[in-house]
C-alpha cells in the first residue's frame, strides 16, 4: 500500500486534431502542410492492429478527440483520482520527429513543444503538469537549437528523444551535440521506447520486422537496450559527467542480464573501447534511471522481486510511470503491491525528484491541490 505523493514520469498527451498542431507551425511550413492536407501524414502510420481496436485504454476514448487529448478526462481518470503531485507530459509518442522530410520533422517538433507549453502548461495552469521537450533527431543541429530555444523553460523537466532520426544507436557521436546542450541546461535525456519502429534505417527488433503486436511487444525493449548500451560503450557519461539518462517504457526484468552481460565482457572488450574507464554497471547505477512501467508479471510475485534484488540497488533506479492512457498502463496500487514496501517512497517519488530538472520556484509547488483520497 502506498498513499504518499506520486511523481509520474510518463503521461502521453496528444492534440485533439492535427489542425491543432498545425496551428503552431511556422507560417512557411504551415502553408506547405495545409496545401497538402489530405495526403500529408504528420506522423508515421501505426503498424499493428490492436485487439480492441486501439492501443489506449478503452475508457480514455471520448467524443472530442483521440485518447490523451482531453485535459479534463486526464484529470478525472488520473490526476485527480490519485495523489499525483507531478506528471511529465511525453507526447504520443513523438513520431513527428521522424517523418521522411527532415526539415518538416524539425518544424513539427518545434510546433509540438510550443503546443505543449501553451495548451497543456499555460492554459490549464495546473501546477502538477510538466512537459518534456521533444528533440528533433534527424538533424542534430536542429535538436541543439531546440534545446537552446526552450531548454530553460521552468516547466520543461527533460529533453525527450524518441525517433531514431539517423538510424544510429543513440550513444553514437553524431547525437552527442544534443547531449552537450541538454547537459548544459541541466536537463536529463529521456529515451522513450518505440522510435526505432519508424523507417529511418534502424530496426525495432533484431532479426527482422515483427508481424503482430504480440511479436512486436514481446521483445520490445531490444532497441532501447541497445541505445542504453551505446551510451556506455561510446563513453557518453565520461564525456558528459553530469548527464542523466531516463529510459522509459521497457519494463525492468532485463536489468540483471544487461548489467552482468556488459560487465562480464568488459574484461576482454575494454581494449577496443578504452574510453569506457569504469565497469559498465557503475555507469548504469550512477547515471541511468528506469521507468517502472510496464512492470513485468511473474507467476509468483516474489520471483520478480528476487530477480530485481539479484542485481542490487534497483530501488534507487526505478521511477514510477503510469503511461496513461496506453493499454498497458500501470495502476499505482498494483505497482505498490508488486514491489517491496521499503522501495515505494523512492520509486513513487524520491528518485524522480532527484532525477528530473524541476523548477526551483517554490511558489509553484505551494499551489499543488490537496491530494485526492488515497487509493
Amino acid at each position, binding site marked *: 500500500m502506498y498513499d504518499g505523493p506520486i511523481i509520474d514520469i510518463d503521461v502521453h498527451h496528444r492534440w485533439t486534431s492535427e489542425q491543432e498542431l498545425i496551428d503552431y507551425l511556422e507560417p512557411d511550413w504551415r502553408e506547405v502542410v495545409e496545401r497538402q492536407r489530405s495526403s500529408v501524414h504528420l506522423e508515421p502510420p501505426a503498424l499493428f492492429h490492436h485487439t480492441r481496436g486501439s492501443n489506449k485504454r478503452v475508457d480514455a476514448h471520448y467524443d472530442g478527440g483521440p485518447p490523451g487529448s482531453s485535459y479534463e478526462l486526464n484529470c478525472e481518470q488520473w490526476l485527480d483520482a490519485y495523489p499525483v503531485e507531478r506528471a511529465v507530459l511525453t507526447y504520443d509518442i513523438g513520431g513527428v520527429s521522424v517523418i521522411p522530410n527532415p526539415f518538416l520533422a524539425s518544424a513539427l517538433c518545434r510546433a509540438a513543444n510550443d503546443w505543449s507549453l501553451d495548451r497543456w502548461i499555460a492554459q490549464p495552469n495546473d501546477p502538477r503538469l510538466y512537459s518534456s521537450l521533444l528533440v528533433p533527431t534527424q538533424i542534430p543541429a536542429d535538436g541543439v537549437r531546440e534545446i537552446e530555444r526552450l531548454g530553460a523553460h521552468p516547466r520543461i523537466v527533460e529533453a525527450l528523444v524518441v525517433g531514431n532520426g539517423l538510424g544510429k544507436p543513440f550513444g553514437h557521436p553524431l547525437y552527442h551535440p544534443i547531449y552537450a546542450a541538454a547537459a548544459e541546461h541541466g536537463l536529463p535525456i529521456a529515451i522513450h521506447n518505440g522510435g526505432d519502429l519508424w523507417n529511418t534505417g534502424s530496426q525495432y527488433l533484431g532479426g527482422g520486422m515483427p508481424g503482430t503486436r504480440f511479436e512486436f511487444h514481446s521483445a520490445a525493449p531490444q532497441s532501447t537496450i541497445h541505445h542504453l548500451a551505446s551510451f556506455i560503450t561510446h563513453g557518453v557519461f565520461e564525456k558528459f559527467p553530469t548527464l542523466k539518462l531516463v529510459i522509459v517504457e521497457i519494463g525492468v526484468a532485463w536489468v540483471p542480464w544487461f548489467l552482468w552481460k556488459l560487465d562480464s565482457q568488459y*574484461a*576482454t572488450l*575494454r581494449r577496443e573501447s*578504452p*574510453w569506457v574507464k569504469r*565497469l559498465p554497471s557503475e555507469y548504469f547505477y550512477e547515471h541511468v534511471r528506469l521507468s517502472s512501467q510496464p512492470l513485468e508479471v511473474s507467476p509468483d510475485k516474489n520471483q520478480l522481486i528476487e530477480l530485481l534484488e539479484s542485481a542490487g540497488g534497483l530501488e534507487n533506479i526505478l521511477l514510477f510511470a503510469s503511461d496513461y492512457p496506453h493499454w498497458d498502463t500501470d495502476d499505482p496500487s498494483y505497482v505498490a503491491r508488486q514491489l517491496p514496501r521499503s522501495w515505494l517512497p523512492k520509486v513513487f517519488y524520491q528518485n524522480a525528484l532527484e532525477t528530473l530538472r524541476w523548477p526551483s520556484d517554490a511558489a509553484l509547488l505551494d499551489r499543488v491541490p490537496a491530494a485526492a483520497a488515497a487509493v
Partner: protein
Amino acid sequence: MFVDVGAAEEFAEGRPRVIQLAGREIGVTLWQGEVFALRNICPHQYGPVCGGYAMPMLLGDADGVLEVDDDRLVIVCPWHGWEFDARTGRAAWGPSAYRLKTFPARIEDGRVLVDAGPAQPAAKTAEAVAGTAD
C-alpha cells in the same frame, strides 16, 4: 630461490614463453629491459593465460581516442582475451578480484632468473587447480 631459466636472447621481446619451474607452469616475458614471470593459469576459466600474447596497454581519454601506454605491458589470455598487467598480475580492466600470481624475476649478466618458490609436492596443473577451486 632464483633459478636460471635461460639466456636473455632466447626470449623474444614482448612474447610470453611458458616454462616449467618447481612443478609450476610459468610464463616469462622480457620487455624493455624488464622481465615478468606470471603463473600460466587464467583465473577466469583456468586457460593457459601466458600461451597467448603480450601487448602494450591501450587507454582512451575520449570516445574514439586511443592511446598507447608504453609503460605497461599486459598479458592477453588466448581464450577470452582477458588482460592482466604483466608487472603486477592485476586485472587490466579495473578493480577486480581476478589476479595472476606473479613471481620475482630479473636479468643478471644476460641470464634470466626466476624465483618460483619451493618445489610443489604435486604438479600444480590447471586441472588440479580447477578441481580444487572453491
